[in-house]
Each structure stands twice: as structure tokens, then as C-alpha cells.
């Protein structure tokens, strides 16, 4: 691990100012916020991240979970994954988020990890994690070792010729289906970013993963109120029954009325370069009856643009069946 200066931010504006000195908020930032550290310390041990300065933000007042003005729920950036997952309102009204968080990592990690840290979690691609290999995300221009290499766990949606890394988070798939918005405070004040606009696709710049700029600090996320009677499900398929990343996962929020679907949100995990909202699946389902045939049609629409790699072609069919299963569970 490269050594660093550790400073403790006592106010939000101190934290913002400290990180605003960094030339980037993306891969390789020399100044980084640290909260739970469950992702950052891991990558620092691998020399994948080599910050010169760490800004400890654990003391900032950003850990509350409380009702949002105008309905919905406001979750502080520093709220720990465990606390979000077990919160009464989250369990009752945003069950998909609780299910998703509890399906990920281990209890120890969920105790340490924060909402915003999970939001910014990095890919598990083995080549990204190993500085001995070329990786365009870690070192722009060095090539993508995963294309034609070990890519079983990587993405089939949203990839580019430069990068096929998948976003590994479960929380973020649920947040995407819930249409969360992300509140950021930065050098130019506060702004709200809908999660659909928060993540970028690799394209020609896989080293950039979000729209965050230097000095930007996520302060909280807001979940909008859902229609009464909406049900939600998170289904995660993986090699082991626990403590393993998704091969494919689906987050569904759905409501039926008079035998047809009148509200539906679909997001996929394990298969996208970013948490994958499927407007195609939603359009296919809206106004239709909850039948196996309609579910299958939605799944076909969702995976229509999938580009399988040399070792993950199975994910195309697996993701479709995952989506069908999740829809079936949510409408049972």
C-alpha cells in the first residue's frame, strides 16, 4: 500500500474543500474520501487505488434515515448498509432495497459499509484488481485484458471495446429500480442527480464511472414514494448460496390493477457495465397481464442488445430467466 496523509473532516465544507484539490474524482484520484473503507482499503492494498491523502468523513452528520419532504425516504450517505437493510420503513415500503443489501457481502462488511460507499463500489474484474495486467479502467490505454480472457463474471450490457467490466453492487440495482436521486454537495453548491444519470458507460473512457467532479460529496439519497400496493422483489443468482457476487440479478417494483400491470420498474444486476435499468422490459409489461408469456417477452426485450463475451454467453439466458422468476415472485 502506498502511504498517505490522513485527515479527519469536521465539517462538510472542509471535506469538499479537501477533495476539490484533486484533479479528478474518478480512477486514480490522489485525494479520496474514506468512510467504511471496505472497498477503498481493499483496492489500496492491491495498489489499484493509490491516494496520497485520505479524508475521513465518518464524523460528518450524514447517517440519518428519515422521511423526505413531500413523501419518500431520505437515506444519509453514511448510513451503514446493515442499518438501511433493517430499517422498518425500508423493509415495509422499499423491500427490494432491504433484500438487495442483505443478499450482498457479509454481515461484517455490511456493518462497516455505507450507502454512498456502496454507490461508488468498483468492479471485481480480476484484471482491474491486478496491476500486473493491462486494464483501460485502471490505466487508460493499457488495453482490456478481459476481452478474450477470464470474463465469466463480467458484463454483457453497456460494454465497449475498451472495457467489459460489470458493476457488482446489489444495492445499486435496487436503487435504480426505485428511481433514487442522489444529493451531492460540491464546490459549486448542491445538486440532485437522478440515479439514471449518475453512472456513465465505459465508452472510450472506462476510467470514468460517474458524473462526480472533484470536491463532490454525496450527502444522501432520496427514494420517491411508491404507489400504494406496489410489491418489490430482488432475485440474485450466483455460484454460491451466499457471500458471492451476482451472475445475474433482477430488482422489480410492480403493481397490478384489474388484472393488468399499471406500474412496473425493472433493473438488472451482474450483467451491466452499470446498474441496468430496463425501460424496454417496462414498456413491454405496462398494461399487460401478469403471465409467463408476457414475462418472457419482457425478458427478451431487456436482453435484446446483449453482447456476450467469450466466457459469459450463458448470462444472456440466465438473466432472462432471472427476470421471469423475479416477476413471477413479485406478482404471486
Amino acid at each position, binding site marked *: *500500500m*502506498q*502511504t*498517505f*496523509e*490522513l485527515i479527519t473532516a469536521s465539517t462538510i465544507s472542509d471535506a469538499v474543500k479537501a477533495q476539490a484539490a484533486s484533479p479528478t474524482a474518478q480512477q486514480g484520484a490522489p485525494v479520496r474520501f*474514506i468512510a467504511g*473503507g*471496505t472497498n477503498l*482499503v*481493499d483496492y*489500496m*492494498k492491491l*495498489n489499484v487505488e493509490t491516494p*496520497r491523502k*485520505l479524508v*475521513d468523513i*465518518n464524523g460528518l452528520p450524514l447517517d440519518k434515515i428519515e422521511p423526505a419532504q413531500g413523501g419518500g425516504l431520505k437515506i444519509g450517505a453514511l448510513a451503514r448498509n*446493515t442499518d438501511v437493510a*433493517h430499517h422498518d420503513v425500508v423493509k415495509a415500503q422499499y423491500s427490494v432495497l432491504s433484500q438487495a443489501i442483505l443478499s450482498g*457481502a*457479509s*454481515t*461484517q*462488511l455490511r*456493518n*462497516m459499509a455505507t450507502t454512498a460507499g456502496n454507490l461508488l463500489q468498483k468492479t471485481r474484474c480480476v484484471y482491474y484488481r491486478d*496491476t500486473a495486467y493491462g486494464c483501460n479502467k485502471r490505466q487508460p490505454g493499457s488495453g482490456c485484458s478481459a476481452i478474450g480472457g477470464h470474463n465469466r463474471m463480467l458484463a454483457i450490457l453497456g460494454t465497449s471495446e475498451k472495457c467489459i467490466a460489470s458493476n457488482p453492487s446489489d444495492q445499486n440495482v435496487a436503487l435504480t429500480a426505485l428511481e433514487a436521486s442522489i444529493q451531492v454537495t460540491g464546490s459549486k453548491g448542491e445538486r440532485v442527480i437522478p440515479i439514471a444519470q449518475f453512472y456513465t458507460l465505459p465508452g472510450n473512457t472506462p476510467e470514468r464511472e460517474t458524473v462526480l467532479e472533484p470536491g463532490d460529496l454525496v450527502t444522501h439519497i432520496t427514494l420517491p414514494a411508491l404507489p400504494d400496493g406496489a410489491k418489490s422483489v430482488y432475485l440474485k443468482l450466483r455460484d454460491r*448460496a*451466499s*457471500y458471492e457476487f451476482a451472475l445475474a440479478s433482477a430488482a422489480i417494483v410492480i403493481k397490478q390493477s384489474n388484472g393488468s400491470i399499471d406500474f412496473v420498474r425493472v433493473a438488472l444486476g451482474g450483467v451491466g457495465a452499470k446498474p441496468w435499468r430496463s425501460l424496454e422490459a417496462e414498456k413491454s409489461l405496462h398494461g399487460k397481464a401478469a403471465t409467463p408469456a408476457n414475462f418472457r417477452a419482457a425478458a427478451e426485450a431487456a436482453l435484446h442488445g446483449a453482447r456476450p463475451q467469450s466466457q459469459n454467453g450463458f448470462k444472456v439466458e440466465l438473466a432472462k430467466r432471472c427476470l421471469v422468476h423475479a416477476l413471477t415472485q413479485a406478482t404471486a
Partner: protein
Amino acid sequence: MSLRDDDRSSPMTSLEKLSRRAFLSRAGAAGVISATATVAAPLVAATTQEQQVATSESAIPGTVAVTLKVNGDTHKLQIDPRATVLDTLRETLHFTGTKKGCDHGQCGACTVHVNGRRANSCLLLAAMQQNAEITTIEGLGTPDKMHPMQASFVEHDGYQCGYCTSGQIMSAAALQHEPCGPADNDVKEALSGNICRCGAYPNIVAAVQFVRRSA
């Protein structure tokens, strides 16, 4: 891990310019400075001059001061900012009951309690744990006064090589204060962050369930 060429050409603190040998010989055998009433850290005999240098807080460039509370005792330390709680517990404070399995938060052998909650100490930077109450297996119970979970692991033969065991027990002890269903499968899910290469899982679950059911 090996240094890359650019690491050699641009060291950024005086700490990086020190070889490990030089760092250790300045600090004494413990590798860092500790001042505490309760840590019995036998230092290798050092010259008076070295000891005078070693006890000055600013003597080691690039270190940071932190006070750790472990098992009820307070330890004033001067440590590398990169030091994890795991390495500090084991190497500086000689609490070797907590084990290093993977060092990357993937096996749970390093599980300790921080402010009553279980955490992987290999991913916690010690310098960030000022004021935190840390409990290790040594603080959970002693051979003469075992924690019920420790006693149950002995009764139920909940280990083979013993390497994952302190992490399993620390996880299981914390589990008693967490929401968890009554079934064996619930325990397996709750403890899935503690891996046992020997496969002692059936007896581990039995040991944990015994304590849960008698509570």
C-alpha cells in the same frame, strides 16, 4: 508486494525513504512506539540512545498518533497510517487471537467487535479508530472464564485446525444481538462471512444454536 519502477523514483514521504530494517531498528522490536500500562511488550535490548529517540513521539517520520481502546484498556500508539486494526492488534499489541486469513475482507478470520458490532479488522485503518471500543477474542473470555459461545464451541467440537475459530466465535457472539431467524439455515446465512477450510460447519452451527436456544 514488489515495488514498481515509478514507486522507486518518486517517494513522497520520508517514511518511504526508510528501509524496513532502519524503521524497525529505530522503533525497537515492537516496530512502533507504544506507551501503556497494560501491554507487556518485551523490547529487544536497545542502546539508551535508541530508546531516547524511540520514546519521542515525533521521532519516526510519517507515523500518526492514535489511542486505541482494546478489551477495556487504552493504548497510546504511534503507527504507520497504513496499519490496519488487524496488524496493530497482532504485531503491536500482541493480541494474536485474531487471525489474518485473506487480509482482504473475504474470509472473516479477522472478525472483531467495534463498538459492539462485528467487523473485518483487516479492512479497518487503525488510525481511523480513535475512540472506538474494540473487542477481540481475548476480551470475550478467558480459559478460566469463558464466554458461553467459547464454551459451546469446545463442547460441540466446533473447530478442527482452529484458525477460523476466533473469527467464528466473535461473529457468533455478535449474532446474539442481531436480527436472525431461528433455523440452522438462518445461522448459516448470518455466519456466511466466516469461512472454514476444514469444513467444521456442522459443529459450528450446532455450537451456535445451542447458545441461541439456551438464551
